[in-house]
C-alpha cells in the first residue's frame, strides 16, 4: 500500500513485550495469549489475523490496558509512550483510553448506548478528558462526519443509534475513536457484522481517515482479504502466539508458515467445474410464483426457482433480501400467500403439519448456528439417532451402526457419539448438524448460511465434505449464503435475491463472467479481493 513517512526514525506508539494473558475456563486458568510482542510506529497499520479464539481481541483490548473479567495478565508489558499500562493502577490507565488509544468495536449497533444521542456519546471523551469545550468537540465531530462521508453531517449527531443504519453507525464509531486525535486505534473486526456492500463503504472510510489523520492502527480481523486492503504489516495469530509476522506483500505472496498458507484454503479451493451436477436430472423442487408476507411486509414477491436432482443452487443476497424466508417456505415453516411448490412435479402441502412423514424426510434443513440448533443436553448419539428412529424406525444395533457410519461420513470418529455439543468445536458441531440431516436420507438439504459462523479453514473443509457427499449420495443442496466466495466454490447455479425478488439466475460460470445485472455487479465488486490494491482501485474508480 502506501508508505509511512520514515517509520524507523520515530519512537513506537505502542510496544507490547512478551505479553502473557490467562483466561478462566471452567474455574481453571489457562494461558490464552502466550508471549506476544508487537510494536507500531506512528501512522503504521498492523493487521492482526487469526481464527476466532486465537486471542486477537484479548490482545487488542490489552493495548488499552483493558482485560475482560475472566482474564488476567501474568507477564509482559504494554507500553504507550513509555508508560507500562499493566503496571499502573486502573485510575491512571483510564485517562489514556479514548485520548491516546481508542477502540472501535465489532458491532457498533451493540456498542453504542441506545439511551443517548450519538453526538453526546461521541464527544463525551473530548469534553471530559480531551480538554475541549463542548462546542469545539461538536465542531470536530461534524468535521469527522464529513470526512467519514456520513449523511447530513450537521444534524447526524442528533440522532439516536437506532435511527442510523449499521454501516453509518460503524463509521460514527470511527468518528468517536478519532475525536481526541489518538495516536493509536484498535479496530476489532469493524466490518465483520456488515453486509459486503456496506463493508466496502466502511473500509474506504476507515482507510481514508487512517491516512488523513496519520493514526497508527491495530486492525483485527479473520479475513485476510480485508487486511490486504488496510495494513502495512501483518501478524498471524494462532492459539495465542504470533506464528508469522511480516510486511503485507511478503505475507500475501510468500506465506511461510503452513498455517498462514492454509488461511488461503478457501481462496485457493478451485473446483473441477467440468462435472456440472444435475444436468438433465430434471427438477426435484420447483417454486412457482411464490409470494410471502410478514403482516404488511412483502418478504417474497413472485419467486420462481428450480433445484435439479443432485445439483447445488446457491441463493445469494444481503441480509433482509428474503433468502431465509424462502427456506422457511420450502420447508413448510411459513405459508406462502401466493404460488405453489412442486416436488417431483406434484404440489407440496404448504404447512409442515400437513406434509406426510415421507415428504418431511426428503427435505432437511441445516441452520447457521449449530450452537442453537443442537440440544446441548443430549449426546451426539441421540441427536443423530433420533431422525433414524423417526424416519427409518431403526433401533438397537442397527441404529448404533448407522450413527457410526454417519459420523464417519462427516469425518468424525466414533468417539464423538458419547460427547455433548458443548464439548465440540464450531466446525465439529456443524458436522454433527450435517450428519443429523443426512440421517434422514434426504433428497434436498437446505443449508442456511451454514458456513458463515465458521473460520475460513474450517469453512473450506466443510464445503469440500459437502461436495464429496453430493458426489456419493446424489443429494441436492439449496445453499443460502451471502458469501460470494462460497458460491464460487460450491454452486452449480446461482440465484441472486434483492428485496424479496429474484434479480438474476445463472449457472455459476456465466454468473461470474460479465456482463452482470447491476445489483450483481455491485455485489461482486464488493467482495474484497486477496490482492492488495483492490480497495485502491475502487477508490480510484469512484474518484473519476
Amino acid at each position: 500500500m502506501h508508505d509511512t513517512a520514515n517509520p524507523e526514525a520515530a519512537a513506537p506508539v505502542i510496544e507490547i513485550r512478551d505479553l502473557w494473558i490467562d483466561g478462566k475456563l471452567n474455574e481453571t486458568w489457562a494461558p490464552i495469549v502466550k508471549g506476544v510482542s508487537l510494536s507500531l510506529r506512528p501512522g503504521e497499520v498492523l493487521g492482526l489475523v487469526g481464527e476466532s479464539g486465537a486471542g486477537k481481541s484479548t490482545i487488542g483490548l490489552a493495548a488499552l490496558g483493558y482485560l475482560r473479567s475472566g482474564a488476567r495478565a501474568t507477564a509482559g508489558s504494554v507500553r504507550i509512550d513509555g508508560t507500562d499500562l499493566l503496571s499502573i493502577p486502573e485510575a491512571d490507565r483510564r485517562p489514556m483510553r479514548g485520548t491516546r488509544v481508542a477502540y472501535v468495536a465489532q458491532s457498533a449497533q451493540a456498542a453504542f448506548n441506545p439511551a443517548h444521542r450519538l453526538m453526546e456519546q461521541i464527544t463525551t471523551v473530548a469534553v471530559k478528558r480531551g480538554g475541549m469545550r463542548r462546542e469545539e468537540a461538536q465542531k470536530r465531530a461534524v468535521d469527522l462526519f464529513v470526512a467519514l462521508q456520513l449523511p447530513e453531517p450537521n444534524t447526524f449527531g442528533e440522532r439516536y443509534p437506532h435511527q442510523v443504519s449499521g454501516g453509518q453507525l460503524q463509521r460514527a464509531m470511527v468518528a468517536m475513536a478519532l475525536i481526541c486525535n489518538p495516536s493509536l486505534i484498535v479496530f476489532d473486526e469493524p466490518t465483520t457484522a456488515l453486509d459486503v456492500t456496506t463493508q466496502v463503504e466502511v473500509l474506504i472510510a476507515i482507510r481514508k481517515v487512517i491516512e488523513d489523520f496519520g493514526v497508527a492502527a491495530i486492525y483485527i480481523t479473520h479475513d485476510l482479504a480485508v487486511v490486504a486492503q488496510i495494513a502495512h504489516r501483518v501478524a498471524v495469530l494462532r492459539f495465542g502466539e504470533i506464528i508469522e509476522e511480516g510486511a503485507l506483500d511478503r505475507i500475501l505472496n510468500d506465506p511461510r508458515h503452513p498455517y498462514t498458507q492454509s488461511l488461503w484454503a478457501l481462496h485457493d479451493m478451485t473446483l473441477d467445474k467440468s462435472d456440472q451436477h444435475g444436468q438433465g436430472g430434471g427438477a426435484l423442487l420447483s417454486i412457482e410464483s411464490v409470494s410471502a408476507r410478514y403482516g404488511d411486509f412483502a418478504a417474497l414477491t413472485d419467486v420462481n426457482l428450480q433445484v435439479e436432482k443432485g445439483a447445488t443452487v446457491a441463493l445469494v443476497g444481503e441480509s433482509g433480501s428474503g433468502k431465509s424466508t424462502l427456506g422457511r417456505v420450502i420447508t413448510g415453516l411459513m405459508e406462502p400467500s401466493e404460488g405453489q411448490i412442486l416436488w417431483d412435479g406434484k404440489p407440496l402441502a404448504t404447512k409442515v403439519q400437513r406434509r406426510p412423514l415421507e415428504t418431511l424426510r426428503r427435505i432437511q434443513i441445516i441452520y447457521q448456528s449449530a450452537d442453537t440448533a443442537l440440544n446441548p443436553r443430549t449426546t451426539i448419539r441421540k441427536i443423530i439417532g433420533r431422525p433414524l428412529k423417526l424416519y427409518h424406525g431403526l433401533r438397537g444395533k442397527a441404529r448404533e451402526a448407522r450413527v457410526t457410519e454417519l459420523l464417519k461420513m462427516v469425518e468424525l470418529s466414533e468417539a464423538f457419539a458419547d460427547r455433548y455439543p458443548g464439548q465440540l468445536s464450531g466446525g465439529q458441531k456443524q458436522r454433527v448438524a450435517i450428519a443429523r440431516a443426512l440421517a434422514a436420507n434426504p433428497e434436498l438439504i437446505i443449508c442456511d448460511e451454514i458456513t458463515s459462523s465458521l473460520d475460513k479453514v474450517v469453512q473450506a473443509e466443510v464445503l469440500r465434505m459437502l461436495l464429496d457427499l453430493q458426489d456419493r449420495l446424489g443429494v441436492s443442496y439449496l445453499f443460502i449464503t451471502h458469501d460470494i466466495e462460497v458460491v464460487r466454490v460450491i454452486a452449480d447455479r446461482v440465484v441472486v435475491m434483492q428485496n424479496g425478488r429474484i434479480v438474476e439466475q445463472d449457472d455459476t460460470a456465466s454468473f461470474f463472467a460479465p456482463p452482470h445485472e447491476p445489483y450483481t455487479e455491485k455485489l461482486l465488486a464488493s467482495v474484497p479481493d486477496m490482492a492488495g490494491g483492490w480497495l485502491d482501485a475502487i477508490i480510484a474508480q469512484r474518484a473519476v
Partner: protein
Amino acid sequence: MTGKPNPLFSMILGRIGLGLVSILIVSLVIFSTVSLLPGSYAAAILGQNATPEAVAAFEERLGLDQPWFWRYLQWLGSAVRGEFGLSFSGRPVIDIIGPRLVNTVLLASITAVIAVPLAVTLGIICARYRGRPIDRLISTSSLAAISFPEFFIAYVLMMILAVQLQLLPSMAGIRDGMSFGEQLYRMILPVLTLLMVILAHMVRNTRAAILSVMSSAYVEMARLKGESEDRVIMYHALPNAIGPIASVVALNLAYLIAGVVVIEVVFVYPGVGQSMIDAVRNRDVPVIQACALIFATAYIGFNLIADVISIVSNPRLLHPR
C-alpha cells in the same frame, strides 16, 4: 417526522384501555364470586330462628332480591362515582372505608417516599461494588429479610424497639384527635416493618436489572472510552435499566396498598385491610367488594404506570426512526 403520530401515544392509550378492561373484568369476578359465597347476610343477622318471611323482607329492603346483573350494574355505577353504595349495616360504604383508606394511603406514602429512593440507591451501590463486602452485606441481609414472613419481622421489631428498649409504642392505633406528629410517631414501627419487607425485594431487583445491562457491549465500550465506573453505572447502565426497576417498584407500591393487611392487624393500625377483615367477619358484602375492587385497582394502576414508564424510557419508542 412531522404529521406522523408518534406510535408512543397510541401505545400508551392502548395500555390505559387494557387497564380499564382489566379493572372491568376484575370487578365482574369480584362481584360474582362474593355473591356466590355461602351463607346469607339476612340469615346471619336475623339469627337461626328467623322466619322465611322475615328473611325475604330483609333481603328486599337491601335490594338482594333483584337479579344479580342488575345489582352488578348498580354497584359498578356507584363505584365509578366513588360511593360503593350502602353497606348492609345501613351506612354508606364510603363512610366506612374512606377514612381508613386515607390511613392506608398515608402509611403507604410515607413508606414509599423512604423506600423507593433508598432501594434504588442501595441497588446501584450493590451493582457498583459487585462482589465487594458492601454488596455482599446488602445482598445477604436483603435475602434474609425476604425469607422471613412479614408478621415475624413485625413482632421482632416490636419486641426489641417497643418491649425491651421501650422507644416506640407497640400499637399504631392512630385517631383523628391526635396531632400529626403523634400520628407519625405511632406509625414508625409499621413503616419500619414495611420498609424491611419491600426494600429487600426492590434492592435485589434494581441490582439485577443494572447488572444485566452491565454485561452489554456498550458498557464495555464506555469503559474503553475511559469513563469512570460511577459514570458507567449512572449514565450508561441506569437509563437502560429503568423499565425493569419501574415494574418491581410498581409491584411493591401496590403491595403497600393491598398487601398490608397482616401488618395492620399486628399493629392494630386502622387501615383499609382491617375494615375488610371486619367486613368478612360480618358478611358485609358491599364493603368486601369495595375493598377488593380498590386493591385490584391499585395493582392494575401501578403496573400501568410502570408499563408507561418503561415504554417512555425506551428511546426506540420515544424517538422513532
